[in-house]
């Protein structure tokens, strides 16, 4: 049949689109003005789809529990963790992290965990948001 997709296309015209229109339905003419309007409360951002439990987002570090054993540094494939000699604690560079969560598994005191934050884009690799310590 020549137009095998035609029934599908026609049906789609009446159905809700599958795409979740995050962050806004149409592209705003100026992104900075849009973000300012959101901050003032004049516009709203359509929320992203919920992440499932167990999602591997930005790393979280419980400083009190850490014992300075350096096992996480040994197993990190990206060299994203640095050891602070004097304090015996670690510093994690999220810009180098590949979100594999191998450090979570090997830590003997479970002081590392992955949150569900994924909106991490930043202009500066070493800004405060992208360094966890």
């Amino acid at each position, binding site marked *: 049949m020549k137009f095998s997709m035609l029934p599908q296309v026609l049906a789609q015209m009446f159905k809700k689109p599958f795409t979740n229109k995050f962050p806004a339905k149409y592209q705003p003419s100026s992104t900075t003005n849009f973000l300012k309007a959101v901050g003032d409360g004049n516009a709203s951002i359509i929320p992203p789809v919920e992440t499932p439990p167990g999602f591997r987002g930005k790393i979280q570090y419980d400083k009190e529990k850490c014992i300075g054993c350096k096992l996480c540094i040994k197993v990190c494939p990206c060299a994203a963790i640095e050891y602070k000699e004097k304090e015996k604690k670690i510093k994690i560079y999220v810009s180098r992290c590949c979100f594999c969560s191998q450090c979570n598994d090997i830590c003997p005191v479970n002081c590392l965990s992955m949150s569900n934050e994924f909106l991490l884009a930043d202009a500066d690799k*070493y800004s405060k948001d992208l360094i966890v310590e």
Partner: protein
Amino acid sequence: MTKQLTPKEIVQSFTDTFKTKIKNPRIETHAAGSKPTEFIHIWMNVDKSIFKEAVKHLTTLENYPHLAVASGYEWENTIELVYHFSIYFGERCKEISLNMTVVLPKSKPEIDSICDIIPGALITEQEKQEMLGVTVKGIPKDKRAFVSDDFPKGMYPWRKDETGASGKMVRNLHEGDK
């Protein structure tokens, strides 16, 4: 369809034809799954002078043996190439992997091409030439497969001696400005 031999018979046919030029044959049995299903890997050391005949002998066991890839590494004064063949595919749980190791001296790393027997070996032979500095005699198309044309000649990335990749060719990205 040629008759299928058991692993012991396969090793026997090689040692009978080539006598002492086949060294250290070993048959490894591995198992997987709950049943468990077993499969065989055969490893043998083949002398480079009879390597091409050994591959021809393999075609008597299976009409079109499957060459997966040829890996290689250097070891002290030699370069060792491992050719990974597999035969008897097509029926469930019958395939046997045959790995042939050929030892070449570093002073004269030459080997014959097997592209006339197995045309699919072209790319992997080109790769050995540029990565390890092996010369493949009789290769149909002599050009670089993976390394770019402006990579320095005489530098062989897989080697761990002075001809290995070093200096400007290696960029340690993680040692950036922190």
